[in-house]
């Protein structure tokens, strides 16, 4: 499938994973122990035959560029294909002008250089599996101008509150793209995934820019709903949207459940990531682990339940880890009790023996912190 190139769009200003995002863009945040969030959209593209991918990024690029390398781990041909990291230099972090349109516009030259007729745009902050080559074929066959991917949910009152929704007619025509206001249970959550002709994409960028410096791609697509043939395509299978700290926590924890993880991961649709060459995890005499996902390189002497351990964690004797997400190389010291926490990379929980939060409001321990 050389018809389309891919774009991984940056998180907009309404999306912020408190704590974790101070150190890296959402795409570079650890997920399910050994992945980064951005592994999902890139693997989807690679598996769909898309081998020219632009990744837009605004700040703290190091962890992301380190992780991506030249894209070989995503099985992208290093001659023919290319992962291109495009930087946005203008505009500060929480700036209201900080839109995806601004990023595209600043790198317009690189977009115009692509010779593919179509573009597939997917977000760096959503986790799902989807075959874009099928979606593109359907898009072409349908004759639509734009196809938007959505996921029907029935918990939109309490979840996906930072997401957009699609208002659809019976023919799946999109009537509006609007923010989820939590007013109804059943909603079609917009997955921030677009398929359209490259030409139309360029046109929309220009138009959005001329209409308002604050317009996003979703805004301009919403504006065009009456003018263009915009259609929704329903997504099935696991869908996680990481738009704030709680949704990050929930998405991870929900995937401990084999039923969910089986619907996201399957052998025919590999999710690639960068290997760290860690050795297997070592369990000691005193270990007790249940219902957990454990990455390589850990040393486990304590108790772990309903948790996710990143690479190279050390759970010492007498330590108890429950309902928590422990990022790489963290140390949980002897007899330390951790519950409902996200423990960031290399944090060491040694002296304070009780670090417990509620499930509704999980806690966060900063990177490199010693407690």
């Amino acid at each position, binding site marked *: 499938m050389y018809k389309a190139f891919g774009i991984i769009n940056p998180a907009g200003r309404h999306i912020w994973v408190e704590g974790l995002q101070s150190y890296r863009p959402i795409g570079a945040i650890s997920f399910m122990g050994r992945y980064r969030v951005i592994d999902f959209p890139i693997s989807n593209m690679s598996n769909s035959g898309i081998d020219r991918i632009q990744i837009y990024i605004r700040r703290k690029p190091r962890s992301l560029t380190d992780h991506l390398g030249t894209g070989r781990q995503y099985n992208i041909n290093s001659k023919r294909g290319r992962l291109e990291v495009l930087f946005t230099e203008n505009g500060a972090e929480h700036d209201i002008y900080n839109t995806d349109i601004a990023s595209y516009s600043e790198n317009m030259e690189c977009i115009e250089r692509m010779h593919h007729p179509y573009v597939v745009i997917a977000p760096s902050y959503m986790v799902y599996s989807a075959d874009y080559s099928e979606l593109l074929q359907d898009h072409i066959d349908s004759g639509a101008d734009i196809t938007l991917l959505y996921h029907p949910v029935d918990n939109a009152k309490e979840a996906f509150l930072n997401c957009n929704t699609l208002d659809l007619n019976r023919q799946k025509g999109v009537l509006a793209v609007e923010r989820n206001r939590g007013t109804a249970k059943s909603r079609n959550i917009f997955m921030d995934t677009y398929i359209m002709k490259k030409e139309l994409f360029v046109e929309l960028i220009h138009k959005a820019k001329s209409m308002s410096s604050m317009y996003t791609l979703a805004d301009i697509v919403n504006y065009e709903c009456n003018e263009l043939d915009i259609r929704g395509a329903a997504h099935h299978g696991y869908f996680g949207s990481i738009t704030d700290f709680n949704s990050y926590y929930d998405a991870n924890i929900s995937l401990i459940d084999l039923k969910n993880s089986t619907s996201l991961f399957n052998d025919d649709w590999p999710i690639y990531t960068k290997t760290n*060459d860690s050795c*297997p*995890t070592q369990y000691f005499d005193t270990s007790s682990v249940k219902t957990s996902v454990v990455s390589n390189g850990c040393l486990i002497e304590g108790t772990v339940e309903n948790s996710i351990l990143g690479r190279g964690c050390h759970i010492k004797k007498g330590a108890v880890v429950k309902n928590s997400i422990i990022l790489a190389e963290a140390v949980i010291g002897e007899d330390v009790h951790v519950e409902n926490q996200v423990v960031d990379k290399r944090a060491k929980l040694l002296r304070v023996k009780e670090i417990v939060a509620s499930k509704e409001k999980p806690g966060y321990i900063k990177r490199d912190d010693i407690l």
Partner: protein
Amino acid sequence: MKQNSMLAMILAGGRGSRLHDLTNKMAKPAVAYGGKYRIIDFPLSNCANSGIDVVGVLTQYESILLNSYVAAGRRWGLDAKDSGVFVLPPREKADANLNVYRGTADAISQNVDFVDSYSPEYVLILSGDHIYKMNYAKMLAEHKACNADATIAVIEVPMREASRFGIMNADEAGRILDFEEKPEHPKSNLASMGIYIFNWKLLRKMLVADMKNPDSSHDFGKDIIPELLNDGKNLHAYKFKGYWKDVGTIDSLWEANMDLLAADNELNLNDSTWKIYTEDVTTLPHYVGPDADIKRAFITQGCTINGEVKNSVLFTGTKVAAGAKVVDSVLMPGAVVEEGAVIHRALIAGGIRIGKQAVVGSADSEHIELVAKRVKGVE
């Protein structure tokens, strides 16, 4: 080649027939070890970590898996501009027919042109089936410092076992006085590890002469080293301290895996300054179910464990169902233990399924049971 002008050649042709069914379809260096590795990952990672850029791998027996495995030099980072892992099987030439390698020295002799194309100053000869971590750069430094013609790595073995090895007798400075292959009455306990550094010019000359010698068995230990000693060359013994294992049998392969379970195991695969690199497998981290009970185990990604695992090593993608029990055992990649099955002191080969309620091995057997065929359980 810039860094240290030393090229490595790994001898990886052997079948390892005492590993029985494990080596039906693959050469011994390709055998799985330690949860996620293959044996040949050790010499290859050692090369990468020692700053060696170019490695030739001499293959012969059932080399398909080994060839394609090592060909992907990216696994050890040996895929940069002037680096590479090169598979060297026997080949047809304008002046020679396709012929098997007749001995370790012959394998190098048949590839003199390959070595020459890099014009290295030194050549490091390694064996593809030993498990150890070693910095060859240090060995080379000692080789240079001693002005040696050849340097042989040696390890102290218990005196009573010395007669199983090739034994070096060296003076205090480390100069080798003589060498005996499996001596009945060993004079020292310094066993050759089969790791040699040669000055390439000298070795090249020796090999050309050896090829013409009809009485030679074309072997480093039996022919080249004795010949060098005869010639009065300066052969140096490089003393290695640390974990080193040649896993020739099912029992020793099992043992080498069990060694990893010790809290302070000498091999220490968790050392981030000397990582062992291997195939990058696309799987989830391992999943531990609600009914699991795991103590003293070495478990890698892609496993799904819901039973009891004690004192065992679980390789990539193995499954232990609820109610099953795996004790003192090794499950090789993709092995599946179904509900209620019980395994003691066994080595389950890759992809093998142990059926429901089946019982395999026993807690007090002398030898380790190799299970290379499906064991049916209660249907």
